[in-house]
């Protein structure tokens, strides 16, 4: 017994001392001087660009893949520039689109890009079995919706094909001026079906995945970090920084600590409570983003079924007071389309006026405030949402003399409530999918899944449908103005509160960090000092 134990013990010690090598360091042996270190907050849910729906996965995908077109990140209004398509044109009143595929683009395994690989990708996105959430992105294409529903099984009937000239031809169900914008989105990127067939679900792992963007996936250390490496075979100008090391640090204050300790170069989300201090620093940067924060009214719940009451409430909210209280650089908003996009109307909507508000409330029959029913403001549990709701509660008491109750719910429970029985007033936000007013106004159409107000107006729906078919931006802007008037001045099913801004810290050694209103972080143009 003793002998056995002793021999085991010696074996352990021998193994322990002799068999050991120093573990690979978690900085993945990268040279910091040529590595941009960022924080992507969380493990990307999937690098499969047809299946993921979140911004973390999108960030990685946008750096290793490309679509037909891409945002011109140096343009403030985010125009488009050629990417995998060298040029494109619309016919038939923006209803049929043609894209010329760039020649000589190579995937990382050396194969050449073809137009068919786009069709493959779109077919995969729309195939019911893929269960892709973003399948609806392509619902504008002829027969795409029935194909995704499983009612149509022959993909050749879907409005996408390759012409004799080798162009990619897309036929839409209705005129859509903003269609090329959708093609910047990862769900529309081309794909290599042979790679997926070979590796199955594992095809997105390093060593298996085949891409064509400025970076390739080198390491995916789940729940820890991702390393991207410059793609030397990239068709365009090669990326300026050799590696990107993306940590997955959840907690904002932890990320901030690491930034302060010089362990990461950029942090694009900051704790709101620290902004006052952080703003003083040279590395601090505020960027307007295409995102709105609004209060919706459930127009079926009395007394909010009366548009005059809704208008009174909207007039009684001083947006500036809210943004000053938040102190995060947010822009007070009374129109629906946020700044940074055509269609933004700073003077539209219900301006702050307690007198007008009181007058309207009396006009609605609530001269005696005690007769005004108790109403509720709902929001999902979050410190900032709570601060806004408390502020608005106080404003409504002060400016209008009415009492409102606050009700917070856990996020998913809240979403369920919004779907089944929205509170009188509820908080929500919207972040642009594409930088076009349509994305914001479509949200309030009577058929939108995201319109929780129960409000619907045929006049409004018709205007939105009309606008996307118009040829010029000026003509469209005019129609959007009309639509926004209905939304924010006439029927008032919503009270916009503010347009959001993004706060970031970027180390001085980082040059040309891609700040932009869509939060599209493509790093090929970033260099390090």
């Amino acid at each position, binding site marked *: 017994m003793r002998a056995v*134990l002793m021999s085991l013990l010696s074996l352990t010690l021998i193994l322990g001392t002799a068999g050991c090598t120093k573990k690979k360091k978690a900085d993945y042996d990268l040279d910091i001087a040529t590595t941009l270190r960022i924080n992507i907050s969380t493990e990307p849910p999937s690098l499969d660009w047809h299946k993921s729906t979140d911004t973390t996965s999108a960030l990685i995908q946008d750096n290793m893949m490309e679509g037909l077109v891409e945002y011109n990140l140096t343009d403030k209004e985010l125009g488009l520039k050629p990417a995998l398509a060298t040029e494109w044109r619309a016919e038939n009143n923006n209803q049929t689109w043609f894209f010329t595929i760039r020649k000589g683009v190579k995937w990382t395994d050396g194969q050449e890009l073809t137009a068919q690989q786009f069709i493959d990708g779109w077919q995969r996105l729309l195939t019911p079995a893929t269960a892709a959430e973003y399948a*609806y992105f392509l619902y504008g294409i002829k027969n795409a919706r029935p194909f995704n529903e499983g009612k149509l099984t022959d993909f050749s009937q879907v409005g996408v094909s390759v012409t004799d000239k080798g162009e990619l031809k897309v036929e839409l169900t209705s005129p859509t001026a903003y269609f090329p914008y959708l093609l910047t989105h990862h769900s529309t990127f081309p794909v290599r079906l042979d790679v997926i067939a070979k590796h199955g679900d594992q095809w997105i792992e390093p060593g298996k995945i085949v891409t064509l963007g400025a970076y390739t996936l080198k390491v995916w250390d789940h729940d820890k970090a991702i390393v991207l490496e410059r793609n030397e075979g990239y068709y365009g100008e090669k990326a300026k920084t050799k590696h990107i090391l993306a940590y997955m640090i959840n907690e904002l204050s932890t990320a901030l600590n690491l930034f302060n300790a010089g362990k990461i170069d950029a942090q694009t989300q900051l704790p709101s409570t620290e902004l006052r201090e952080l703003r003083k620093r040279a590395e601090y940067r505020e960027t307007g983003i295409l995102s709105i924060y609004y209060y919706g009214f459930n127009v079926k719940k009395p007394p909010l079924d009366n548009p005059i009451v809704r208008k009174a409430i909207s007039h009684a909210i001083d947006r500036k007071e809210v943004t000053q209280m938040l102190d995060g650089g947010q822009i007070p908003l009374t129109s629906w389309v946020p700044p940074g996009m055509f269609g933004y109307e700073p003077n539209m909507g219900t301006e702050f006026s307690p007198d007008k508000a009181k007058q309207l409330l009396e006009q609605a029959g609530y001269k005696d405030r005690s007769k005004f029913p108790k109403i509720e403001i709902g929001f999902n549990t979050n410190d900032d949402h709570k601060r806004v709701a408390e502020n608005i509660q106080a404003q409504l008491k002060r400016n209008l003399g009415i009492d409102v109750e606050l009700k917070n719910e856990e996020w998913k429970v809240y*979403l*369920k409530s919004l779907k089944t029985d929205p509170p009188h007033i509820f908080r929500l936000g919207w972040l642009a999918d594409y930088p076009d007013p349509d994305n914001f106004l479509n949200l309030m159409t009577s058929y939108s899944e995201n319109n929780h107000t129960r409000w619907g107006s045929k006049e409004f729906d018709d205007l939105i449908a009309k606008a996307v078919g118009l040829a010029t931006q000026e003509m469209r802007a005019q129609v959007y103005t009309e639509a926004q008037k209905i939304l924010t001045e006439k029927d008032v099913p919503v009270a916009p509160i503010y347009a959001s801004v993004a706060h970031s810290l970027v180390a001085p050694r980082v040059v040309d960090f891609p700040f932009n209103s869509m939060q599209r972080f493509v790093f090929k143009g970033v260099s390090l000092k």
Partner: protein
Amino acid sequence: MKEKILLFLGADWDKSLLIGLPIALCVLVTLFLDFFGFEVPTALYVVDGLLILGAFLHFTITQGLVTYVFKRTGEALVVVMVIATLTFLLLRLVPGGPFDQEKALPPEVKANIEAKYKLNAPIYEQYFDYMAKLAQGDLGESYKYIGRPITDILAETLPSSVQLGIYALLISFLIGIPAGVYAASRHNTMADSLTMITAISGVALPSFLVAPLLILFFSFYLEWLPPALWEGPEYYILPIITLGVRPAAVIARLTRSSVLDVIRSDYIRTARAKGLSEMVILYKHVLKNSLIPVLTFSGPLVAGVLTGSFVIELIFAVPGMAKHLIQSVSNRDYPLILGTTLVFSLVLVFANLIVDLLYAYFDPRIKLT
């Protein structure tokens, strides 16, 4: 030398020493190598595992506890099954589903997703399907981390949690027990009061306060240690202290009060009358009999600490499992919730079983049947 050690430990500790010492040495070597960032060969883990298992079997067989262990293991499995069932059902009762999100999905898309994950099937069907797969060790795929098997997620995150947990347990026992004995032996003195004030502070301070204080002091003021990440020994220290400080304090308090009880008993008076040295009395005769309350506390402690602490993993960016245990609930990621809950309950149930066996070891008067 050996006689001296044996005199100190007593004859009944001789055998234990023979088995315990190599095990402790092996485990310590492993921990040491792991801590200092060496790639520990799998063989070493296997040897550790075999040694512990061997000791466990040796004890079970010599004490005639084989049936007991089998019975308890059976019970444990039933408990885990019940937990799986309850969790499964409760999840379906919680409002909000895994694919409800701010940007609502068109019904067609939602139907495709529900069909893929069989969420449109009747609940009992989903349940039997889940249980059948579970019996084969298949925990399914995550909804949130699309296509990733739950077993992969657990295999990738649990080790960091366990690693952090073992170190934290080690320091909490190594600090807590001696501190408790020390305070008891200096009962009603300044040293006793100071130790206990420290311990009470340790119990009272929540980790979300201890962590930032430690970071502030060691990372930014002294600049000795990194504020977060999990990359090597210097990164391990702060999370280990934060996680270990509370159990260490509780153990110190438990040990102290239990040592105080034992120290007043007749046989200790006899030992003193025999002229044994205070050290021998305290660490040989008193301590062994005082460990029962500490053991009781250790079962849940081990389970809690090994499966990770949400707050500490967040603050120090430790790539552990606790994050998933909490966030999977907010995401309504049913398979991941079930997976993490099962791991937690398994560890808890078996930690308690081992604690019960240790009762019998430390106090032969306790009979397990």
